[in-house]
């Protein structure tokens, strides 16, 4: 996979978020990102192509609940939603990875994806990732979202 597929990453992220969870991302610079309230999750999807790396997708817990509710087509107050929140965030990362691999794979350079994992992010981890130059930031429903594709997940996957 191209290590710097910025344009494809942004397009696919926005399409998947809209199609999968009916949510819309507004690209922001890190300084203009809404402030994280509460805890956050980071879903990391390892890939191997010409280089190995991670697709990392970070969201606040509150947005994870919205993603789960929208994905399942149920109200956010549905008792099943909290049980699916982390799984739904992992699935968004997985679908972004699959679409990216499809868009960027070349016959001579196959892309292998591995199952995603999810990690809790504390405020310090979040701020470090948010301000990392290779992280892309979005506002989604007035909540912050971070996305990065690269050789590491900002240390959060280790």
């Amino acid at each position: 996979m191209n290590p710097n597929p910025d344009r494809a990453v942004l397009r696919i992220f926005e399409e998947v978020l809209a199609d999968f969870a009916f949510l819309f991302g507004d690209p922001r610079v890190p300084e203009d990102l809404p402030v994280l309230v509460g805890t956050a999750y980071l879903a990391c999807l390892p890939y191997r192509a010409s280089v190995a790396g991670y697709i990392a997708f970070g969201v606040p817990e509150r947005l994870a609940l919205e993603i789960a509710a929208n994905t399942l087509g149920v109200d956010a107050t549905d008792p099943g939603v909290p049980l699916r929140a982390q799984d739904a965030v992992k699935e968004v990362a997985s679908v972004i990875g699959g679409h990216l691999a499809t868009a960027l794979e070349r016959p001579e350079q196959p892309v292998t994806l591995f199952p995603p994992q999810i990690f809790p992010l504390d405020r310090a981890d979040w701020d470090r990732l948010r301000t990392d130059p290779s992280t892309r930031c979005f506002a989604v429903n007035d909540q912050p979202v971070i996305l990065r594709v690269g050789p590491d997940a900002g240390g959060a996957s280790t």
Partner: protein
Amino acid sequence: MAFSVLAVDDSSTVRAIIAKALRLSGVEVSRFGEASGGEDALRMLRGEGFDLVFCDLNMPGMNGYDLIEAMQQDGLLGTTAVVVVSSIGTPAAIEELRNKGVRGFLRKPLRPETLRQVVHSVMGGTREPQS
């Protein structure tokens, strides 16, 4: 005609989406089973039998490729219809899976109307979706 369906995906969210998409699409389901990975799926297929399997590819443990290969090597299970449900859609991957006996492909995110078309094409007639 009603089909027994097994959804194989490590994501419980996706399994729930498949169940919901089947309901919305008008595909009649006589029995709906869920497996979170290839090993579970193989055990359920051998024990209970299903008409149609919706199978993810990227799963921990026995992944979708391994499950499909194991089904092909098992005489009886080799005739079970498999539809891959994945976000991966490269022509090379699709060709490889077709050669392994996969009959249909559904790209994530899943849509009920697409699911209905694929089930119709793989299994034959389905009733009209409910409005």
